[in-house]
């Protein structure tokens, strides 16, 4: 337990000290971006990692909440606080409905349905110009001032994002260790046995879907605060694929994995985009290479290597019998 505490304290200090080490506003903003994507990747990891349900339409909740937040403030005259709450509710409700539809199938059928639903939401944002501004997107006038703290400058915004991510990490950590987390992993590995033991597999998966949509919506609201702009790209298949790649690349089913994935992908994307225009090709190549050569991700791969180096036996063999 004390080791966990020490890790948490070290992480907190590192996050707090990071802006001083970086100094420059550009890097502080980049760090905020990484934290937002880390939260988004953690949300999809709840589904693809813990529940074993690969979603390719997760941008729908992220972008949906971002659009809802901007739309409510611009068009419906909501104030910042109620717009944020309503936007998260909207994203979560969208996930609740899409979850009911997607969970009619399992495995790759699930993936295909989430992809189709995500593309429909993208199509609405792109084509329904009257509602969403179409390709021009939507601007958000100003960032809010939560509890009276002004977060319009990069540094305060970074701390605000870090606090939100910290809360999310704590909740997800508790969730992963809770009985619900255990039954979620159970439905992933042994759905039939779980059903036999009296668990409502569908309900467990649906609740995970809704929670995943909830955290994706929070990330979406942070995203629209960060950019003060949202466009159909936020809802695109590319966005869904990027975040899925973050969670898979880092290591699905761990808490650290999606964060590592978010750091790697966001850094690569920003570095590459400043040199050449071929981010999509590189994204595809990373997909192919990571699936072929690093099937279980950076974090589990490194952990295994670490255990082998230190000579410790792995705690429990992950039994994967059908």
């Amino acid at each position: 337990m004390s080791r966990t505490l020490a890790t948490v304290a070290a992480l907190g200090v590192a996050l707090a000290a990071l802006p001083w080490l970086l100094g420059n506003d550009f890097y502080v903003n980049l760090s905020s971006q990484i934290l937002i994507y880390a939260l988004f990747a953690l949300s999809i990891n709840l589904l693809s990692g813990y529940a074993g349900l690969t979603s390719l339409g997760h941008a729908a909740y992220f972008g949906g909440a971002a659009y809802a937040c901007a739309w409510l403030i611009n068009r419906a005259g909501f104030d910042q606080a109620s717009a944020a709450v309503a936007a998260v509710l909207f994203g979560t409700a969208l996930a609740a409905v899409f979850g009911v539809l997607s969970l009619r199938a399992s495995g790759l059928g699930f993936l295909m349905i989430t992809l189709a639903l995500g593309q429909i939401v993208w199509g609405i944002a792109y084509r329904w110009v009257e509602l969403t501004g179409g390709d021009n997107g939507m601007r958000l006038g100003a960032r809010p001032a939560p509890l009276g703290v002004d977060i319009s400058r990069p540094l305060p915004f970074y701390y605000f994002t870090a606090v939100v991510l910290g809360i999310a990490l704590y909740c997800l950590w508790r969730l992963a260790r809770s009985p619900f987390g255990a039954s979620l992993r159970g439905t992933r590995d042994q759905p039939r046995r779980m059903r036999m033991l009296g668990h409502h597999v569908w309900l467990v998966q649906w609740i995970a879907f809704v929670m995943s949509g909830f955290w994706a919506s929070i990330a979406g609201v942070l995203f629209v605060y960060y950019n003060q702009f949202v466009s159909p790209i936020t809802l695109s298949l590319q966005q869904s694929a990027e975040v899925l790649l973050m969670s898979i690349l880092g290591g699905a089913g761990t808490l650290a994995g999606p964060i590592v994935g978010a750091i790697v992908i966001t850094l690569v994307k920003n570095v590459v985009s400043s040199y050449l225009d071929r981010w999509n090709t590189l994204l595809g190549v990373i997909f192919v290479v990571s699936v072929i050569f690093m099937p279980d991700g950076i974090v589990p791969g490194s952990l295994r290597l670490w255990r082998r180096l230190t000579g410790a036996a792995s705690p429990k063999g992950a039994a994967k019998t059908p």
Partner: protein
Amino acid sequence: MQFWVIQTLNSFALGGLLFLLSSGFSLIFGLMRVPNLAHGAFFMLGAYVGVSTMGQVGGNFWLGVLGGGLGVAVLGGLLERFILRRLAGNEQGQVLVTLGFAFIIADMCLVAWGGDPIPVPAPSYVNRPLFFAGLAFPTYRFVVLGVAIAMAVILHIVMDRTRLGAMIRAGVDDMQMARGIGIRVSRLFTIVFCLGAALAGAGGVLGGPITSAYPGLDSDMLPLALVVVILGGVGSLLGAFVGSFAIGFIYNFGIALFPDLAYVILFLPMVLVLVWRPQGLFGRMLR
């Protein structure tokens, strides 16, 4: 009256294109259990390769269709043989690889053919409308519809009457048993993947005179193919046929009558099918 005639014909033509796209998608999914997310990119690549082929051979449209189909079939075969084969048994990995290739192909098309839409010329002898009972009918739409129906008949005969078709159906129904009785299922994978890619590529060229070849054609077509297969059912040729024309009509009239809401309208048939018959109209359970 003219509006309805044109839109009906457009819907039939779009349905035909969707059939060329989704029949291969559905067969690949049915046999290999992998939704090939590069299928939209295959369609777009076919259109580009086709229009370049036409430029090389002096504008013969049908050689362009052949070139688009063959070119994409070769690419699909290489993808299946050298990449997907390495990941046999890891279906999720295979899907992600097809998605990766969808991005790579789309981006490379942008590099090779640029960002502006490239018009694909229809054969000159079908470029003028047919007049009948005082109404003008765009002739090319009939050509697309005719090719799609001919293809459907050929595919049906292949699947239903030949040894190859029987083997594919056996693989779709129960792969382990098919392997057990000595069918080389892995070779079927390559054949079906090439066939599906060829159909998508040829469909891209054939649709060219209607849609033209442009970046983003892939992500416009992929969701339609997905919805067709969700509607019609996985691995079913009849499902792909019925689903294609249903979606062709719904989408086309949706765009014509409520341009803002076309995607919302697309959503409804999908929801209805998922609620009442999640395996699709003619399919078995999605797995």
